[in-house]
């Protein structure tokens, strides 16, 4: 259970920021190119700020769940997500500020700060964990990209990039493989592997559309490898960029305001 942070930019989450242009000497051409592609992909979602509405559909062996969520974000460390639907959970909100995640529960009128014990728990009953959201904003610091494949696969001209964790990065994956559509530089799929080389889960991107003058995938589907038939799908209904927020917007006080 439990939630928090920004739902949406799961993409941003995953690809996020490599804001630093390629510079360091000693980085091979491939690495530099991989970095450039990842930066480009990340910039699809990344802006100074964003605001969007999305629906999330969760299908598990035990339940199906449909949520409507509204999201605001600024930079890579601040985000606010509020549940619009279903009514039972309406108003429940999650604030991520740096490494800290707060949840406001209208039913109990309490703000709870999530602790380490809940980090591996599911986020809003989906196949994402709270940890995914917190770690997402650190991808740039945590992984080194490298191109492992260029060419046509399943009929698509694509580039496959492998993200390997840096030695001191606190991430659980041994490897993330990202397929990027070469012509449009849009992500197709991310595959997450553990240290046994086992695929643990896959994140698929689709529904490429123009939103606020950007062409980007508006549908993301997370599929766990060991639970056949289960998935979580996030679909953007609207997305806008370049908003200006008051400094107090991403604060605990704002969290409580409905």
């Amino acid at each position: 259970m439990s939630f928090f942070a920004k739902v949406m930019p799961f993409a941003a989450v995953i690809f996020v920021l490599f804001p630093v242009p390629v510079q360091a000497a000693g980085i091979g051409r491939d690495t530099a190119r991989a970095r450039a592609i990842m930066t480009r992909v990340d910039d699809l979602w990344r802006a100074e700020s964003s605001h969007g509405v999305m629906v999330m559909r969760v299908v598990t062996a035990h339940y199906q769940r449909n949520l409507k969520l509204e999201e605001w974000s600024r930079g890579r460390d601040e985000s606010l997500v509020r549940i619009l639907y279903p009514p039972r959970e309406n108003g429940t909100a999650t604030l991520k500020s740096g490494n800290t995640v707060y949840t406001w529960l209208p039913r109990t009128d309490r703000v709870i700060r999530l602790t380490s014990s809940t980090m591996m728990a599911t986020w809003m009953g989906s196949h994402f964990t709270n940890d995914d959201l917190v770690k997402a904003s650190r991808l740039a610091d945590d992984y080194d990209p490298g191109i492992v494949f260029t060419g046509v696969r399943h009929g698509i001209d694509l580039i496959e990039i492998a993200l390997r964790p840096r030695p001191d990065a606190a991430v659980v994956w041994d490897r993330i493989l990202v397929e990027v559509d070469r012509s449009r530089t849009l992500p197709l799929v991310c595959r997450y592997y553990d240290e046994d080389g086992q695929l643990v889960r896959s994140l698929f991107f689709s529904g490429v559309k123009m939103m606020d003058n950007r062409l980007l995938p508006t549908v993301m589907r997370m599929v766990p490898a060991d639970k056949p038939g289960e998935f979580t799908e996030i679909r953007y209904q609207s997305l806008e960029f370049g908003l200006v927020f008051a400094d107090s917007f991403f604060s605990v006080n704002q969290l409580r305001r409905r």
Partner: protein
Amino acid sequence: MRRLPFITALAIKNIRRRRQRSLIMVAAIAFAVFIAIYYAALSEGLLANTERNAVLMESGYIQAHLPGYLEEHDFYQLINDFARVRAVAGEFGLAAAPRLFGFALAANGGDSAGVVLRGIDPALEDRVTMLASHLRSGSWVDGRSGVVLGTRLSRKLGAGIGDEIVLLAQAADGSIANDLFRVNGILKPVANEIDQGTIIVSVAVFRRFFVLKSGVHEIALGGRVLDRGEVAALTRVLAARLPGLEVKGWPEIAPVLARVLDSSRGALVVMLLLIYAAMAILILNAVLMGVFERVREFGVMRALGLGPAALFGLVMIENGIIVVCGGVCGLMVAVPLVVYGQSHPIDLTFLAADASSIAGVAIDPCWYTSLTVSVLAWPLGLMAGIAVIAAVYPALHAAFINPVTALGYD
């Protein structure tokens, strides 16, 4: 033995004539018997109680789960026919209590902790375990929002009786379960898991919170005192009657605990044997002395014409009367004390201020006595055996004594 009445009368006369010595012997034997019985009752009580407490603390004698639940603790592995299990258990005179478990985040002010929510049916649970009697303060769970916390968890959350805590979890339908609960009570140390991270609620509250209409994770069976053999036998029978369920007795659920209890039983038996040995030495001493110091007297009787058989009978009967008196006196002191100790334990709480544990289960710092057949039979039987053996040799000695030598014996 035609002359038995005569010899018996003679024996009684002898005993009365030598009242003081007889009294000392009776007292010594009574004392030995008393100590042995009392210690046996304490040991028996300690053993029975430690096992019963450990088992009834929270696990119960027998548990039923869906196969694999004990390893995976999958929230959706639910037993859906509690009523049937209850009915089958009822056929064997067992009560059944349903339990539900779910993970949650508990928060109180700035403090929070991951916890296991345990849903119980207070009335049914009470028939199967003694969990409710381990409340340290406050009151038990109710059907509304009252919850009970493990002791270390309450400290970690800084939550006292009457405080409101927030629980946050993923409900069975994937939604965000969250609610305010009132701390009704705080437990004494029970078992590590419960102390550190369990919040007890009623089944009704659990179902509402987790949006779970039916089903239970665990069914605990018990309701009467069962020994290990009965647990094993019932487990087998119930497993056959409840296909599709995994039925396990407590020694399987908590094997380390079972072995620890076995080995402490071994240690207590050794101690008990030593007490019996000390008792035997005392009785042996008393009986041997009582006979040997009278060798001269026996010589006189032989000289006066009492045959060896009669003399042997005399010694044995005299001795028998004294030993029986001693045993009866010992019983008369021991039994009331043991009975008293069944309800008034030796309370060692002051030695173990915050509880102590064996194999992760808190142990009761109170020693109750237990009155069983073996508690009385062993010391008394041993006493009789020792007394006979101790008397035969000197009695033979007396019977075949040469009167002249005996008269010179001092």
